[in-house]
């Protein structure tokens, strides 16, 4: 039986509670958006297969609860992840400040050399923006491997790149890396 995919990649989304991780995942895996999300309790995942350069890539995207106390549970999933997406809310300064803490968690729990992606969510709420793009660029410029992309949680096609584009960029790097091995 032919394998249904060429590569399997495990991605993990982390970030403060309420920044829109679940929304991103559902937007990505099911290509829909609605306003009725339930706060994630513990951990959950979605699967989507994408086509990148003729290869079938199966993406297993793990969604995590953002509340601090769930870290003891969610950090167990860091090690298996090939890419980790750090999400903050551009209208919530605290969620951006906390990216430092999430980076620390990655350092302590993930495999060395794991790909990271910083993602500022809710760009459709430009009027309420608290975290400037320059701030994010500046704070994380030392992490040359990190890509900073903005994602509008609500709609694609309004000038923001839809999340699927973001993830693709991230996967591509993984693909390249894996094909070497």
């Amino acid at each position: 039986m032919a394998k249904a995919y060429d590569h399997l990649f495990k991605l993990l989304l982390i970030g403060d509670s309420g920044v829109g991780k679940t929304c991103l995942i559902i937007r990505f895996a099911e290509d829909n958006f609605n306003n009725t999300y339930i706060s994630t309790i513990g951990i959950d995942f979605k699967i989507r297969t994408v086509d990148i350069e003729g290869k079938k890539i199966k993406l297993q995207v793990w969604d995590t609860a953002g509340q601090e106390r769930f870290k003891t549970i969610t950090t167990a999933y860091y090690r298996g992840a090939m890419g980790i997406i750090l999400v903050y809310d551009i209208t919530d300064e605290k969620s951006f400040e906390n990216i430092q803490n999430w980076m620390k968690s990655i350092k302590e729990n993930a495999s060395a050399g794991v790909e990271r992606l910083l993602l500022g969510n809710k760009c459709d709420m430009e009027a309420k923006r608290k975290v400037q793009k320059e701030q994010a660029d500046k704070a994380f410029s030392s992490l040359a491997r990190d890509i900073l992309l903005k994602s509008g949680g609500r709609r694609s096609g309004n000038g923001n790149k839809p999340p699927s584009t973001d993830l693709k960029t991230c996967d591509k790097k993984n693909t390249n890396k894996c094909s070497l091995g």
Partner: protein
Amino acid sequence: MEDAPQRLRWQAHLEFTHNHDVGDLTWDKIAVSLPRSEKLRSLVLAGIPHGMRPQLWMRLSGALQKKRNSELSYREIVKNSSNDETIAAKQIEKDLLRTMPSNACFASMGSIGVPRLRRVLRALAWLYPEIGYCQGTGMVAACLLLFLEEEDAFWMMSAIIEDLLPASYFSTTLLGVQTDQRVLRHLIVQYLPRLDKLLQEHDIELSLITLHWFLTAFASVVDIKLLLRIWDLFFYEGSRVLFQLTLGMLHLK
């Protein structure tokens, strides 16, 4: 939902355990807690008539006793916990509309259940500072609010936290619920060896599947009709029911 013969059986039982036989039986004449017996257990197993649930849940769980014995009234607790600026209050605010968004009672900030849910969750965070606010408890509280008065829903939550579930279930370490996951893992080895093998083979962490089953006492898992039956049992027997149901459900799969 209301099964007439079952309702009669409950009525008979309540009248029988209630010694005086003058006049109509009203809830205020029925004891705060019902003496545990095989008869009562079999009645609970067969299901509580829906109209009797609010009153019987309060009695089976010990919540009514708490409400009566508490030095602080719910109103006082609400007053003490009305601060908007606490960390718990801010977290609660984020979750109010993410608890039961498809239910009209909790769909928008103007919905009838939202201020109630806010007060109950803040009151709990104030009464149990070692817990504060734990995601998942909102789901339980919201479900209770669908059937009970706000104050009673609060005392039910109190009974769940203090008596029905092991200690530190929702605390900042989540120690209680994590311990239960370990216990469950052992039970699976013992009772569902095929599932145990499957979990090992695919390197599946059990908490992925069952953590929220335990953390929300199934409120986030099953249809509300089924949940009511589960809770009939849970409020009478406590935590053990969660294990039995989980093993049962995993066995079915």
